[in-house]
């Protein structure tokens, strides 16, 4: 293997671009975190290193594109996966027209719907974890905080987090993006999506200083 090049220093892992048996791959290495106790650190890293590839594999069965996993190295908390050539949705949203944005978000919503329908929640639905390849396929990355669950609560939190991520990073079109995503989500199974939307409202009301709760005062 050629010497891997540091591509991104993330919050919990370093991503290296490498050449692996003639393939362009990403090495995702979860580094020890000095700030937390060793035991907790090892538990967290071991858990996520094991679960992330499993969830990515399951996501494919749900019809949601994710990078191919080539190798899981538990000892070094490293996963080797396919490098996806494309553009981060985070960037893309700022470069395209309104109708393109709505279309993109609709398709993202559809994919989230499929994921949830299959019993997976992503756990960190930010636009930097979504990559669109040149032919248009949208890939989901970073399942480290994901979970296998069909609970309505978990689905609601998943979408609530996405809404929040849109509001903090794409405040200009957060609303239209989220609405389009929900439209796409609803096409997968409408009666569930109604319940999920109610759940999101409930989660928001539970949160601190929420406008909706204010209205009822």
């Amino acid at each position, binding site marked *: 293997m050629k010497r891997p090049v540091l591509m991104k*220093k993330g*919050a919990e892992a370093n991503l290296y671009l490498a050449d692996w048996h003639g393939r362009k791959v990403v090495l995702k290495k979860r580094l020890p*975190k000095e700030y937390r106790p060793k035991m907790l650190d090892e538990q967290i890293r071991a858990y996520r290193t094991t679960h992330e590839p499993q969830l990515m594999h399951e996501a494919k069965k749900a019809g949601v594109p994710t990078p191919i996993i080539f190798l899981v190295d538990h000892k070094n908390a490293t996963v080797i996966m396919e490098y996806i050539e494309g553009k981060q949705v985070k960037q893309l949203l700022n470069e395209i027209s309104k109708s393109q944005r709505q279309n993109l978000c609709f398709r993202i919503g559809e994919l989230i719907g499929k994921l949830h329908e299959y019993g997976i929640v992503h756990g960190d639905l930010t636009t*930097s974890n979504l990559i669109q390849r040149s032919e248009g396929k949208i890939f989901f990355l970073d399942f480290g905080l994901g979970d296998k669950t069909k609970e309505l609560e978990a689905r609601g939190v998943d979408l609530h987090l996405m809404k929040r991520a849109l509001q903090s990073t794409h405040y200009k079109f957060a609303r239209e993006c989220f609405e389009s995503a929900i439209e796409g989500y609803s096409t997968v199974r409408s009666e569930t999506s109604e319940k999920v939307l109610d759940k999101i409202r409930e989660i928001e009301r539970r949160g*601190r*200083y929420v406008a909706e709760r*204010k209205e009822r005062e």
Partner: protein
Amino acid sequence: MTRKKARERYCLGIESSADDFSVGISTFNGKILANTIDAYVPAEGGIHPREAARHHAEVASKVLDAAVEESGVKPQNLSVIAFSQGPGLGPCLRTGATVARALASYLKIPLVGINHCVAHIEIGKLKTRTKNPLTLYVSGGNTMVAAFDAGRYRVFGETLDIALGNCLDVFAREAGLHQKPDLPFGAVVEKLAQNGKQLIKLPYTVKGMDVSLSGLLTAAAALSKKGEYKLENLCYSLQETAFSMVTEVAERALAHTGREEVLLTGGVAANKRLQSMIRSVAMEHNARFDVVPTRFAIDNGAMIAWTGVLAYTHGTVTAIEKSQVRLRWRLEEVEIPWIQ
């Protein structure tokens, strides 16, 4: 000299959103001349909003007098009155707002309603000389990671349920610990945790850039009732787990925003262990780390006075009839015209 002094302008700020009643006085150049804080310490249990509000009403004139005397500023030389308009506990906020309205009317000077969370960030920046930090604000009522972007402070991460300080306080009460005026629950837990060695497994819940602390609290409190573990070890485990969660989301936000400064503030910022954790991630991302001095990190009037200066000098005035308190006023609802 006297002429120069006469030109100096001052803002008096009142903070009363929770258990502290405080009055601060700031010059328009950001010199803090007074910051008097009087804390309500319940005999037992948590903050009862009505009891806390009664405390505030009782100490208001005493605290005002003390702040005015300390500052050496004559009330008639004040230019503006600022008050904490929210978020917070209704009865407590209303008490402070009433005092502020009375003062402004009596002195015939403008009134400015300030968002409590904005004030925490602004005084933190003033006191640590940071410019554009990622702020981790952890207190009894709030737990959030925020940074300025395009006209407002954006909340990147926060708690999905209870605040970090609240988690520590309630655990301490459930475990039968007691606080004193100079030793709040957080400090009691911190002290015990220093002697803890065994890490007990507790729920660790990070969701995206948000945390959930209620499950952790329930589990830790239940274990303390069982009496299987030494209290030192429980305090240690609670702190390590809760702080690791908060630090993880702070690091996520730091990687996401790429800021070069990290500011730690709020009552829990006084905790040395939390400071060391946040310092560690700041260093890893080549960011400068600052913790706000405790008297300006806890709820205080100086932060309201200083933010009052910023708001007033950028055109914000709150008419008396629009000065009702805003219990759930979120940080990102506030427009920040003083940052370019």
